[in-house]
């Protein structure tokens, strides 16, 4: 269930003219994962943190804490940046219905964008946030155009997954996103 949302997020970021980076980029390297995440965050001007997987899951019925931890790291960059002059902006995506106010009430006052666990709502939430950032350059595809391109990406990734014997690496995801974004062409306005 999570993979389609992640792929929709990567497609949106690339379609809007930004370079998507994530911890999976350095999969297989010997550095601890947290160091690789910290490095990726430091090298990025913006970060997106999906807090929608707050419910317990798996045989042990445990929630995932990686995303809130990474959001905390991004927040520290943001606050450090205010004194060091290096800017970092972040956004947390939350589930619909203001439920985040119960499990992460410290975000009160930030109005984080919500999504309903569908590619369409993830595309809309991320587009909305990236489009208002100063580094967004118009013209870029509309959320509707990105959503229309998404099934083609899903198809390509499905084929790649079969070729990869059920595994999709980050380079393969990026390569296919790049193909789809290039095929989208140049938007008019």
């Amino acid at each position: 269930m999570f993979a389609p949302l992640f792929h929709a997020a990567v497609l949106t970021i690339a379609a809007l003219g930004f370079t998507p980076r994530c911890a999976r980029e350095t999969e297989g390297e010997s550095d601890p994962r947290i160091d690789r995440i910290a490095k990726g965050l430091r090298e990025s001007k913006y970060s997106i943190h999906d807090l929608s997987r707050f419910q317990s899951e798996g045989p042990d019925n445990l929630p995932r804490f990686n995303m809130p931890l990474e959001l905390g790291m991004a927040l520290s960059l943001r606050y450090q940046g205010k004194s060091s002059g290096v800017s970092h902006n972040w956004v947390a995506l939350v589930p619909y219905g203001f439920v985040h106010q119960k499990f992460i009430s410290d975000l009160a006052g930030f109005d984080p964008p919500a999504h309903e666990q569908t590619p369409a709502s993830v595309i809309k939430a991320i587009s909305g946030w990236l489009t208002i950032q100063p580094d967004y350059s118009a013209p870029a595809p509309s959320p509707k155009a990105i959503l229309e391109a998404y099934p083609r990406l899903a198809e390509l990734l499905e084929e790649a997954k079969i070729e990869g014997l059920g595994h999709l690496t980050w380079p393969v995801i990026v390569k296919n996103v790049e193909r789809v974004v290039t095929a989208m062409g140049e938007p008019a306005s």
Partner: protein
Amino acid sequence: MHLFISHSRVNSAAAFRLCDELRKRNVNTWLDVRDLEPGAAWDQSVISAIQAAAGFVFLIGPPGPGDRWQTFEWQQIVDHEYYLDPSKPLIPVLIGDPEMPGFLKTRQALVLRDTPISCEQVAESIVDALKNPASSVDETKLERGREARRRALESFREYSLTLEAEDIKRAGIRAIE
């Protein structure tokens, strides 16, 4: 029909002054601090006002993060994709030297200084933009945006190729191991 005025709280006084100047020129404006009905939910009222607006004026600045209410308004305007419609007047009015939100970068920006004459001039320019909405799009900036997009795609392509090369290298090391 009205012109929606998006402003941060620090610019309330400037927003009121501009609305007065626009009213003198027979332009109806919608300003949350003035037009919200008592007891109405702020967010729902803003969304309705945005949907009913014939155009938008954005008071932007001074430099620094804007307030969350203005960010909410921008988000709604972006969500409704009005920024993609060149026939919809979106008019940034800069106060100081702020950074423009990306979605307004291709629009002609006006500069508002702290003088009555500047406020009158901005109001006049807004009236002109309303008469000819397409004039609110800055073709030079649009072309610059296209160029930036081409560069971004090129850099993404390079990133993809680098990842692929590193992946091959790692697979080779794994094979040797």
